[in-house]
């Protein structure tokens, strides 16, 4: 099939025509879902803000279902498809395998997303994105998700096929680039995830059609979280790859050690997907042995992997900066980093927020006994807004500042606003996560319309601090919505009105990656010369460790003070 290749003059990236179009369409579809998700976020936050309580109960649960589906499934998955095509076709400079099929995948995802949303907004499917049985949604709610999953599975398959094409056409020599390797781990986890999804959603669809009589509620939760949890590992693998990508593009940073970084990605595949247990820690149907084994044995190796990336990504940046001469003290490399470049500032806030807030809260939440203090409280959405929003979403947003000029060939409009957007969004979202966790620590429930319990047979007054936390949730939630809305405005505005940039030379053959690529490679064979110490990163890592250890044991202390349970 005839296709063309374009070399972007500013970045040197080479885009194949089919892959380029698909990436653009997936990115645009993702942004549109983020818009819907953002509007629903505003309605959710204004309802949970006790002083406002905007929506009636039925509309609140409907909108919250839409918020979950549109954000965590549709926005994230569409963007990840673009990332997969970028990491394969663009970074390996080869043609995309079977573009026709890739379009089929795209349209399945689009149609599935719309079908699912229609079901939600018709009103009979306010079951939340987890759709726990035996609460039942309309059949097309499940059908829509299944279509999206099939579309995503096709996209994932095309990613693997494109790796094969690159190998066959010899467009690169040696091993895959680290970013592509990371994307590959994401794709492998995605395959597992989507298959678990099929294993649970297809029977559930049959059940909603009346073809199956009953699905065991505990079994559903177990298999569903095989999907739900692993999909978060796709996100982690994807946003860690983007951290490496940003570090490479902005600083020319080299991984400290290819071996260590790749090994850490591999750990994700081996262990993270089995950690779905930590969603079931306060469930009746599993034994303690099963819980302890599955959370710790498997999850802590995955935690170790994230701790490694959390060290090697800033370490790579520090090494690159020190080589450029920013060698004073522990932190000159960081102070002199390009804080006005939104691609970098967004990536760095994503890294720090994910590590300090998302990572630590996640591990504490995933400790078998401590989970009883937080299960289903507002702590849980607080935790995952610091992982999937501060971590993944912000990483996706920040890489877009690089993609708009190279992929869409438009200059970003309003550069001053672009500069502040990552701070506005990243910081407000981090604080939002913290105050949500604060409310959860005081017991406030997630997915709950009225903390005053109007109409209940008894009365219960939450402590004043809980109301304070929920009020702060409202304030910072609204700021976060403004920060997210600003990003959508800037991106869509740039696509429509940004200055058109020169697309660069087009040729009908790919230019393979030259063998001798980096300046560093001249000295790389004598590894010692290449080595730079990274004391600043060591200090940051130790700070993380101390915070982690303290917070972890504080929670055991809280636990020791509640009623005795055995």
């Amino acid at each position, binding site marked *: 099939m005839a296709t063309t290749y374009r070399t972007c003059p500013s970045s040197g990236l080479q885009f194949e025509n089919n892959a380029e179009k698909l990436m653009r369409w997936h990115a645009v579809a993702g942004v549109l879902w983020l818009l819907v998700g953002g509007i629903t976020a505003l309605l959710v936050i204004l309802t949970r803000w006790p002083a406002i309580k905007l929506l009636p109960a039925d509309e609140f649960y409907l909108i919250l279902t839409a918020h979950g589906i549109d954000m965590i499934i549709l926005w994230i998955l569409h963007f990840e498809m673009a990332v997969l095509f970028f990491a394969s076709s663009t970074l390996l400079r080869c043609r995309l395998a079977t573009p026709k099929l890739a379009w089929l995948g795209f349209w399945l995802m689009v149609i599935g997303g719309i079908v699912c949303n229609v079901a939600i907004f018709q009103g009979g499917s306010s079951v939340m994105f987890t759709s726990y049985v035996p609460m039942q949604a309309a059949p097309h709610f499940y059908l829509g998700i299944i279509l999206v999953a099939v579309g995503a599975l096709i996209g994932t398959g095309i990613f693997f096929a494109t790796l094969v094409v690159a190998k066959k056409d010899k467009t690169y020599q040696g091993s895959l680039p680290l970013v592509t390797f990371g994307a590959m781990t994401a794709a492998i986890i995605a395959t597992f995830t989507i298959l678990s999804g099929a294993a649970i959603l297809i029977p559930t669809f049959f059940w909603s059609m009346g073809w199956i009589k009953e699905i065991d*509620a505990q079994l559903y939760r177990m298999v569903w979280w095989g999907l739900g949890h692993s999909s978060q590992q796709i996100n982690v693998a994807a946003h860690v790859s983007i951290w490496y990508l940003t570090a490479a593009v902005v600083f020319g940073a080299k991984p400290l050690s290819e071996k260590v970084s790749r090994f850490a990605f591999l750990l994700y595949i081996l262990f993270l997907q089995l950690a779905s247990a930590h969603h079931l820690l306060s469930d009746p149907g599993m034994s303690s042995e099963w819980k302890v084994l599955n959370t710790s044995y498997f999850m802590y190796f995955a935690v170790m992997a994230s701790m490694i990336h959390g060290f090697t990504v800033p370490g790579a940046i520090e090494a690159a900066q020190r080589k450029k001469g920013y060698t004073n003290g522990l932190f000159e490399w960081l102070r002199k980093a390009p804080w006005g470049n939104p691609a970098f500032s967004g990536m760095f806030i994503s890294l720090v927020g994910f590590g300090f807030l998302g990572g630590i809260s996640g591990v504490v939440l995933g400790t078998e*006994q401590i989970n*009883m203090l937080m299960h289903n409280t507002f702590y849980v959405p607080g935790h995952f807004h610091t992982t999937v929003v501060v971590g993944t979403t912000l990483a996706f947003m920040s890489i877009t500042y690089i993609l708009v000029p190279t992929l869409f060939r438009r200059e970003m409009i309003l550069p001053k606003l672009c500069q502040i957007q990552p701070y506005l969004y990243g910081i407000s979202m981090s604080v939002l996560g913290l105050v949500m966790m604060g409310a959860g620590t005081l017991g406030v429930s997630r997915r709950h319309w009225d903390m005053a319990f109007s109409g209940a*047979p008894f009365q219960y007054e939450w402590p004043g601090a809980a109301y304070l936390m929920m009020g702060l949730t409202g304030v910072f939630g609204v700021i976060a919505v403004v920060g997210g809305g600003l990003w959508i405005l800037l991106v869509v505005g740039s696509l429509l009105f940004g200055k058109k940039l020169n697309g660069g030379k087009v040729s009908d053959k790919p230019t393979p990656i030259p063998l001798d690529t980096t300046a560093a490679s001249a000295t790389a064979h004598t590894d010692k010369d290449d080595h730079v110490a990274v004391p600043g990163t060591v200090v940051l890592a130790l700070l993380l460790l101390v915070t982690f250890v303290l917070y972890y044991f504080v929670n055991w202390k809280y636990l020791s003070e509640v009623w005795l349970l055995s």
Partner: protein
Amino acid sequence: MSAILPPSNRLWWKQPIDKVEWAWIGIAFVWGMIMFVMMVYWHVFGKQNLSNEVYKTTPEMFAAKAEKFIAENTLRTETDLNGQQVPVVKIPPGGDGFLIARLWNWYPILELEKGQTYKIHLSSMDYLHGFSLQPVNINIEVIPGYEHVVRMTPTKSGTYAIVCNEYCGIGHHTMLGRIYVK
């Protein structure tokens, strides 16, 4: 720009790992093991562990057992805010009590004594529900078809609320129960 290019050193897997990185990997590993041991330690020495005693059941079977328990142990009835009569049921110290979760209430009101241990049986008649004891803040998933026997020892007297914190439909926020500890 080597993270987006093939490794410049083709034999990257032979490159030695720096001491600092080894140290960090070691720390991460040891910390993971400590966290693992903590959970096991708590099972042996800790006083807050979720019970593993669970039976398969059906809503009918569970309701029948609960009704029998209520009939035998009711102390008095109370009129709730909606004008309904709700039995207040005293569990004999060391004995078994039943708590029904259903759309949208926790039934009945339980009365306990401080320092005594009770076996509280939890199950749902319909959807998933969440047993969230406040202001203690203990949270346990309640699932239809499963009878979960949780041993609890209240440590302070007072009036406690059971919030439902697993979404169960439009009346979810009205699902509030009560436990007295004397």
